[in-house]
């Protein structure tokens, strides 16, 4: 009886060890972009072909942790790069929880700081954990690998707008020839100023699809094949019917994170 028990335990342990190793060896080696379902807010995760992890924004609550738990393997507790598009709570608060739980190697932010309590917490955590922050503006380029890089299209240096949304980092991510446009909460006013550099295959619609998110001109400049709207239950009327109508008119299929995270692979 004792012997049999020992045998069973050994088999179970070996099976688990097997699972552990095989999941490591056969882990997805494709590039992946996940538009995470974090409620009413923004959060996107990029896993490059070499396995670097980039997180753009963190959503309004800790829900991003559950999503990271799904996307990252068990032992991975490092995020190579965090990009904060702008310091509004629905993009920032989740990052405070991420910073507590994961090791963040580097942070990239736009030009402006903020004096909200959540931003103070963010600054404190970064200081505590010695996470270096780089502030970027229009014209910078983030090189992730030979075939993967990000162009910063906005904000312009010394650009002044009362609306913090219009200070959002707008980033065009190029991976193996395909382009993915991350827009934060930037309004159509900003997009129209950027012009033709917006051209991309996939678009994260700005500002949860609010009324002022897109215009026909901006959408023509981008000319995406597919659009993703980061949106949850809300009382602001996001996504606006006019924006959905505009996308339909241009025959651009769109997907909402309201019903679950959305994925793109390359």
């Amino acid at each position: 009886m004792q012997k049999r028990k020992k045998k069973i335990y050994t088999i179970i342990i070996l099976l688990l060890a097997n699972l552990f190793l095989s999941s490591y060896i056969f882990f997805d080696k494709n590039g992946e972009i996940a538009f995470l379902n974090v409620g009413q807010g923004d959060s996107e995760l990029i896993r490059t072909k070499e396995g670097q992890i980039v997180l753009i924004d963190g959503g309004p609550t800790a829900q991003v942790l559950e999503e990271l738990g799904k996307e990252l393997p068990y032992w991975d507790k490092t995020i190579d790069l965090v990009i904060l598009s702008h310091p509004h709570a629905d993009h920032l608060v989740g990052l405070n929880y991420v910073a507590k739980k994961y090791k963040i190697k580097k942070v990239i932010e736009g030009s402006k700081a903020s004096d909200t309590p959540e931003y103070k917490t963010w600054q404190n955590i970064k200081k505590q954990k010695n996470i270096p922050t780089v502030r970027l503006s229009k014209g910078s380029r983030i090189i992730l690998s030979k075939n993967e890089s990000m162009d910063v299209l906005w904000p312009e240096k010394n650009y002044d707008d009362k609306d913090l949304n219009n200070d959002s980092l707008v980033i065009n991510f190029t991976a193996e020839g395909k382009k993915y446009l991350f827009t934060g909460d930037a309004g159509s006013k900003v997009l129209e100023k950027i012009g033709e550099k917006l051209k991309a295959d996939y678009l994260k619609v700005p500002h949860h699809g609010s009324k002022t998110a897109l215009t026909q001109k901006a959408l023509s400049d981008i000319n995406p094949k597919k659009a993703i709207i980061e949106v949850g239950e809300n009382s602001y009327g996001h996504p606006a019917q006019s924006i959905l109508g505009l996308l339909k008119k241009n025959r651009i299929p769109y997907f909402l994170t309201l019903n679950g995270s959305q994925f793109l692979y390359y």
Partner: protein
Amino acid sequence: MKAKLLGILLIGFLAGTAAGTFFNYDISNFFIAAIAFFLVMSVATKKWIHIFVSLAAIFIFAGFEMGCNAANFKIKSEPTSISGFIAKVDQNIYQKSINFYVKEKEKDSYLEVRTGKDVEYKVGDYVLISGNITAADLPKYKKDHIYYFVQYPEIRKIKKPNSGRYENFLVKKAILINRLNEYISDRISAVLPQPHAALSVGVLLGGSSAFSKDLSSKFSDTGITHILAVSGYNVMIIATVLFKFLKKKPQKIKIWGAIFGVWVFAVLTGMSASVVRASIMALVLIIAKLAGRDYYPFSSLMLTASIMVFLNPLILMYDLGFQLSFLAVLGIIYFGPLVGLMFKKRNIFTEIIIATISAQILTMPLIAYYFGKVSIVSFAANLLVLPAIPFLMLFSFITFAVYLVSPFLALGVGFFNWVLAEYVVKTILYLSSLPWAKVNIEFGFTALIVVYILLIDIKILSLRYAKKKKENLHDYYSLAG
């Protein structure tokens, strides 16, 4: 026989309390009359049946009186400010606001505060709250001694005031338990990702608030939320593990060790109704075994319920955890043998299946009444998930213990923990994704009573079949639920 008679008297007490809270009508004259009747009977006729009946009347009226008084209790004043220490903080990282509870200085009353997350509030902080404080005149709050509410008030942290010995003890106890809980859950969360960490901490120490709204609703759709509220099931696991662990030690050490362990666990997890119930019953079970007496699960259950209701009459009608816990045990005691007829073989697995199904027979109607839904997959979910819980508890504890030695090694041990948690989460996600996972139904109070009467009928009708082959579950299943 004696134990059974006591059981009957206690049913009278509980029924009286329920009626008292419900009808809210002063009958102290009847109570006095019943006592007089009892005295006269016991002297005059000396027939035991008369004495018993009059004794039963006393129990019923005493219960009625208590229930009535508790329900009638009104909070008179609405102060403009309250000072005291923070006794409990509900930290839900998935919400934008927090709730915390301030114990009023030198009083046994609490103020529920809802506020933003800008400032960190910790258990044991002394605060002065001023704002639009309103009386919480609802029994479901009064049962927890929450007498006042306030939303987004002005909060000032103050220095520790001079206070009595007992007050100092209370604040120290609250801080100790809170910091120990935090210490353990921080270590586990450092190893495991979410929601695995929340689940591991949840089954070990309780706490269902550590999940996103999305996942919480899936737990509830599959009827599995109870694994996150530490319940009698955890107490049963702890008691049996301790018994096994102390197997070779002398009887005395074994028994006191188990009692001590169970009660430390109860205090550590915040003394919820179901844990207290199971802990008292464990105490009764162990004492019965020690004295070499028979253990009557039903009488033990009634005794436990009566003690708890005597201490706080409002929990009988207004504490869902208390009600579910008792119904689950009643189900195991009364429907266990009936469900057991379906199985020829008896081993640990079939016993778990029997206990799981029989417990749910009685809890399901109440859940339907409270939440307006019935989880169809609940049986399957519980059968698949519950057997994994003892192992999940064990590995969560080991992960924590190993982390103290080496965080790196903990990552290795934690993998087993992660696999178990992943299994539970995936099972719940799968079952809740089935289109017929739950059915929303309108279920009123009358319907609830009708269903329970039907269930009692089924039990009575089945008595003659079950008696032929009377095989009860092991005694310690009466702790679960």
